[in-house]
């Protein structure tokens, strides 16, 4: 490999930072530039809605890697600059400040952005107390009003919304969660798991309302602050602080404008190669064919971002590292460690092991005798074993899964 080649990584989140450093590890001999539009060193996002919001973790604990690590890996950090376009004919990225940088190979790790709340589009989203939660800057703004006694309205009962609700209640805020669907976590879990989380939050003091559409916002006279959240049924909810968390949109515009194949995600193969020979992509911005599920999927997941980054780094130096790991996710709320393996979509059976009343259970989503996905709450052994059940497509007996006297380990094929 010629050492005058340059790899540009666009996007400095989990995927981008890992990709840049792993490319060096994998043997990339040329220059590496890691370009991000945020000023900070690449940082851990999961703590933003948890320990960092709670004030338990400082900025210094958030960095993914120390600055010295990038130096050691020969990765140039290009922070605070936004890529506006990719000029494939000239093999350049163009910055929104007018600058340009030439690449030999390009890696897109552009991530996602919060899905905009339609009801906020007429000005509320510019209010000083209306926020989405994705970046460090978002949370730093939220924290200014995240004070005991403040009335917090969270729009969306997904993971981010519920994690924030848990932290806020503990912090002494008055918390209302407005969820449009008939139950929280409706996109990803079974009703009994939703019911469990609804009860946990209500018991903790959250005013949790489901089946509530937010139709608009009332602002103060200056138009600077949201004062009330308006619901479709006419109800008004007083607010000092509003946080909307209704999902994520993949950042695919750069790729699409450059002519790459995009379909709700930058399309990549199992080695994270895009439709353009010199360009790879990794993380939340991608969509790929899952061998495990037999369909194309897009994930919003740190472990997936890291694994794809490793595969993309390998691809850049001509190695094949196939991305076929089982998706997994986690969410910490109160004292509950929710860990999820796999994707439940398409399941036809649901098996509960343990009991929600004991705040310790595992929920299995089956299609026939195959486990598609598992949600585990305070059940680490089940989670670890479930990864194997899902990955190895082990045929299971539903009765044994539900029977706590049968150790889960015995359901795995013996090596």
């Amino acid at each position: 490999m010629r050492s005058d080649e340059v790899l540009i990584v666009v996007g400095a989140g989990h995927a981008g930072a890992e990709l840049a450093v792993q490319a060096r590890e994998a043997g990339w001999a040329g220059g590496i530039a890691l370009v991000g539009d945020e000023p900070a060193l690449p940082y851990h996002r999961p703590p933003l809605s948890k320990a960092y919001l709670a004030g338990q973790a400082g900025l210094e604990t958030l960095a993914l890697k120390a600055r010295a690590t990038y130096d050691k890996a020969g990765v140039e950090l290009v922070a605070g600059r936004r890529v506006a376009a990719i000029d494939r004919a000239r093999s350049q990225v163009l910055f929104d400040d007018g600058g340009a940088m030439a690449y030999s190979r390009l890696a897109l790790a552009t991530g996602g952005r919060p899905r905009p709340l339609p009801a906020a589009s007429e000005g509320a989203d510019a209010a000083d107390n209306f926020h989405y939660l994705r970046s460090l800057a978002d949370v730093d703004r939220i924290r200014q009003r995240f004070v005991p006694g403040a009335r917090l309205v969270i729009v969306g009962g997904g993971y981010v919304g519920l994690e924030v609700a848990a932290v806020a209640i503990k912090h002494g805020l008055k918390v209302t969660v407005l969820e449009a669907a008939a139950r929280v976590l409706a996109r990803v879990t079974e009703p009994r798991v939703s019911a469990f989380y609804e009860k946990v939050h209500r018991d903790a003091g959250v005013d949790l309302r489901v089946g509530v559409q937010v139709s608009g916002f009332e602002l103060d006279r200056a138009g600077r602050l949201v004062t009330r959240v308006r619901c479709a049924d006419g109800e008004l909810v007083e607010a000092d602080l509003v946080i909307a968390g209704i999902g994520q949109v993949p950042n695919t515009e750069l790729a699409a404008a450059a002519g790459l194949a995009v379909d709700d995600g930058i399309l990549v193969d199992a080695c994270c190669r895009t439709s353009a020979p010199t360009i790879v992509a990794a993380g939340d911005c991608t969509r790929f064919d899952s061998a495990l599920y037999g369909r194309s999927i897009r994930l919003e997941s740190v472990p997936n971002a890291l694994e794809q980054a490793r595969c993309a780094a390998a691809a850049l130096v001509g190695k094949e590292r196939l991305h076929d790991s089982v998706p997994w996710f986690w969410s910490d709320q109160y004292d509950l460690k929710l860990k999820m393996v796999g994707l439940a979509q398409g399941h036809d059976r649901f098996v509960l092991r343990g009991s929600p009343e004991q705040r310790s259970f595992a929920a299995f989503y089956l299609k026939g005798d195959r486990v598609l996905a598992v949600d585990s709450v305070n059940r680490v052994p089940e989670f670890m074993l479930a990864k194997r059940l899902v990955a190895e497509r082990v045929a299971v007996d539903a009765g044994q899964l539900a029977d706590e006297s049968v150790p889960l380990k015995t359901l795995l094929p013996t090596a």
Partner: protein
Amino acid sequence: MPRITLIEFGGKEHLLEVEAGQSVMQAAIDGMVPGIMADCGGSCSCATCHCYVDAAWVERLPAAEPAERDMLECALHPQDNSRLSCQLRVTAQCDGLVVRLPQSQV
């Protein structure tokens, strides 16, 4: 700063200077030590930072909390001296600590 040694499965040694208060996992990431994946970023959720603590040090480190013990039970190739490196805080007393990495994390 305390100095610790990480030994890859293949035997390659990494001597790292670690700021007190950091985890062994973060030190390994910052030191680009292959063999520590740390997919969950240190929240004791994934067991991809599994390591074996040198026998001389096992008793000198604070014992694993139940959550860590649960994870370790199901890690690949667990041993009596298994720990999750994200849960090992480096203190001044850790100078000279030696940990070994497993063959594989996943």
